[in-house]
């Protein structure tokens, strides 16, 4: 079963200057897909458009077969799409618990408290002080809270934008450990990440985006150490 499908997907901020151009992609359930590419390739715009935060000009998006192309961001979250933005991904003026409680609103009332407790148990750093304001957390802890928030509502597809951006190597390792556990739970992961080595180590499959178009699509293991990747990052197009 395909978890996420993009067909002839065109998106951006100006219809005359689309950033993402004619992307077609199928992501099977349970797969970990990483989207790689040079700066300005349109990776973040692509996933933000899928999450309902950037206008889609043409094409379609399907979530588990259901057309969600015109669905607003809150409806996508309710349909099972979790999205973790690169920055400003938690409510800094709300406590850790309140951040999780907002996400829990998507669940049946009877399941909410237990699910918040389960997420706190999964991330011990957060469980240590659940009433602390999210604004007081370190960068890595914020990423964990953002991931916990996205997972709390039990999404079928979780999309993350640069989860390791700005983190120290130790925190990057922690974040990727968390992502590995999430993937083992059967959640479909789509990951935009500049840390290519870490992303490829986690992913089953990698696609490379150049100038808004898909330039390469292969199993992640094939791309590790592949000189093609270096060429693509410098802006060359795949044959």
């Amino acid at each position, binding site marked *: 079963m395909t978890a996420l499908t993009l067909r002839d997907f065109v998106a951006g901020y100006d219809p005359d200057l689309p950033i993402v151009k004619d992307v077609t992609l199928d992501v099977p359930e349970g797969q970990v897909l990483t989207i790689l590419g040079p700066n300005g390739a349109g990776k973040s715009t692509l996933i933000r458009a899928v999450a*309902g935060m950037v206008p889609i000009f043409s094409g379609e998006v399907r979530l588990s077969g259901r057309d969600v192309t015109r669905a*607003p961001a809150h409806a996508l979250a309710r349909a099972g799409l979790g999205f973790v933005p690169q920055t400003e991904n938690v409510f800094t003026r*709300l406590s850790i618990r309140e951040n999780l409680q907002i996400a829990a609103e998507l669940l049946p009332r009877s399941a909410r408290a237990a699910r918040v407790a389960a997420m706190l148990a999964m991330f011990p750093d957060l469980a240590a002080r659940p009433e602390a304001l999210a604004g007081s957390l370190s960068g890595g802890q914020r990423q964990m809270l953002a991931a916990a928030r996205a997972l709390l509502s039990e999404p079928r597809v979780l999309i993350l934008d640069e989860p390791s951006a700005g983190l120290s190597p130790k925190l990057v390792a922690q974040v990727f450990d968390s992502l590995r556990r999430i993937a083992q739970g059967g959640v479909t992961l789509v990951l935009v990440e500049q840390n290519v080595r870490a992303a490829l180590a986690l992913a089953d499959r990698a696609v490379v985006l150049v100038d808004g178009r898909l330039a390469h699509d292969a199993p992640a293991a094939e791309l590790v150490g592949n000189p093609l990747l270096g060429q693509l990052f410098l802006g060359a197009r795949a044959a």
Partner: protein
Amino acid sequence: MTPQLLVNGLVAGTTIGLGAIGLSLTYSILRFANFTQGDLIAWGAYLTLTVASAIAGLLAGLAPATPLAPFSFGWTLPVALLAGMALTVLLALALDAVLFARLRARGADAIILVMAGFGASMALRAGLEFIYTSAPAYFTHELQIARPLGLGMRATPDQLLVLGLTAVLVLALHLLVTRTATGRAMRAVSENPALAAVYGLDVARVVRVTWIIGAGLACVAGVMSGLLVQIRPTMGFDLLLPLFAATILGGIGSIPGAMVGGLVIGLSEALAVQLLGAEWRAAAAFVVLVAVLILRPSGLFGRGA
């Protein structure tokens, strides 16, 4: 300076504070200065008066609206207030649907929203004058004798009711915002509407809740002001500067801050009237506003400039 100043200032400050809460909420969630808030106060008062008059007319001879001792008004006013709040909320929601929501959907800048609100404010005020004329109106013609409170202060039962009702409303609203899912959603949208949508929150619903609370409180403020003084089509416009001063003094987005700001402005106005004369009343709010903008732009309860 007499202790009575305290009572006069607090009573005037309640109207300002309740109006300022609505202004503060719309500012923090919709991110524009809503100039129609004052006119919602005036419309709330007139709509309540209309409903109260209609009830009294329909039931004339059946259930006389004698004053509910020790207050100056009969049972029709509390009933009419509930209906007036509902009608004021409908007016605010219609205003949003017809004007502000369309501008937001087009991605209009805040200044466009402010100017649109300014125009709507004038239209609302002109509408009141057209329907009700500019002659003042009254909820009651009963005379009330102020009763001694001690320390040289006196207050009428209506004034004490206004103070008590305001305290209850502010406490209830504070609990709503800090302890409930609706309040969490409002705080989340206030901080980052795009992220709130990603979390699954229906931002449009939160916007509607904000208008409902703001318009409901505006109606209560208008009725309180009308009960203690009189109703005029320009009563909301006259309150605009004190409303903005209270909102900025308290810190935008802070409900206790807006209330405290309103009380401080009310006390400042009372002080100006006593020390300098009634013609200086409006200047007090302006002086406080300028002082806050210079000394602490984020306000007393703000989160930093």
